[in-house]
């Protein structure tokens, strides 16, 4: 060991353990900061964990593939966490059933707005065709958006990045925006957060209010269904 001080780093930097530890430690720190600022929207833990870890990877010349070998253990839990949304949904079933009509109408309005607005704006901004296609499913959760992008022969990893950016911006903007519209109904606010900003919006909604979190989780699940059908249609109609 002694004759090569780098051999320990070479060994560790290739092992999943290091990157899993880094992911958890950085997130634990950014989450503690978020808590210390009483969940200020700009102290979004995902946003800050992302750039800190990203900068660390760039500084150490580590590839994303090497990083992901460790971080995949965290990434994997996205699936089980989606299943787990059944529990808050079950516990609040009475409130959910009683608002089924506004939910379904808002679902259609929101999903259509999400896909059509991003496609039109991206075309207007003159973005290349494959970028437009990769941005189209940005309001659904990462796994689903990547699947949609793949089926359109777009770029799934760009779709994932668009999803995360959308989620973070949605989570940051949702509280100030909703306060400005004067909507105080946490069912409606949560539903909008989950529809526009999927899991990151839902995580934010749970921080603000339990009912908002439940409705956000429902919106996120339902939007995953609707958007899977909607994106191929909108793309054929609107993308040159």
């Amino acid at each position: 060991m002694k004759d090569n001080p780098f051999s320990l780093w070479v060994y560790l930097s290739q092992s999943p353990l290091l990157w899993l530890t880094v992911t958890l430690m950085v997130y634990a720190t950014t989450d503690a900061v978020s808590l210390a600022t009483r969940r200020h929207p700009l102290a979004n833990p995902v946003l800050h964990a992302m750039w800190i870890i990203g900068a660390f990877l760039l500084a150490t010349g580590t590839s994303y593939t090497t990083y992901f070998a460790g971080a995949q253990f965290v990434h994997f839990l996205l699936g089980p966490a989606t299943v787990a949304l059944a529990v808050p949904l079950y516990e609040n079933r009475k409130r959910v059933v009683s608002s089924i009509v506004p939910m379904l109408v808002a679902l259609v309005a929101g999903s259509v707005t999400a896909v059509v607005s991003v496609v039109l704006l991206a075309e207007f901004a003159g973005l290349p065709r494959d970028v437009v296609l990769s941005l189209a499913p940005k309001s659904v959760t990462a796994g689903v958006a990547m699947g949609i992008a793949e089926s359109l022969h777009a770029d799934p990893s760009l779709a994932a990045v668009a999803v995360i950016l959308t989620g973070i911006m949605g989570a940051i903007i949702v509280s100030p925006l909703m306060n400005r519209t004067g909507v105080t109904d946490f069912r409606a606010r949560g539903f909008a957060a989950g529809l526009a900003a999927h899991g990151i919006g839902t995580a934010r909604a749970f921080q603000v209010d339990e009912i908002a979190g439940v409705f956000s989780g429902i919106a996120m699940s339902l939007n995953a269904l609707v958007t899977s059908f909607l994106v191929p249609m909108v793309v054929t109609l609107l993308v040159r």
Partner: protein
Amino acid sequence: MLASLSLILLCQLIGEAVVRGLALPLPGPVLGLVLLLVLLLARDRFARLARGPLRNDGVETASKGLLAHLSLLFVPAGVGVVQKLDLLASHGIAIVLVLALSVVLTLLATVLTFRLISRLLKQQDAR
């Protein structure tokens, strides 16, 4: 705890299998969510189902544990932005602006529709 996590994974596994098998255009975990919800509702109906993870808040506690740190789970995919730095250098500002505008429009469209419809329903009930 172990049995509860197994049950959650089992729901996802069945969801994925059905979605693949029938080539359904929906994500496997969403079907898993529906499955777990049906199980919980069935448990209230049929006392015989209330065993193992479906007893004493087993699966409820495990699920809440998973959901407590939901944002953490997005970090690995988010760090993938390091692979896209060249694209962000050329189109980054446009992409961020497009996504930001679209998310604001989506939030407004959803929340205002939700409020409008629930107000209309309330007026109808009042009559």
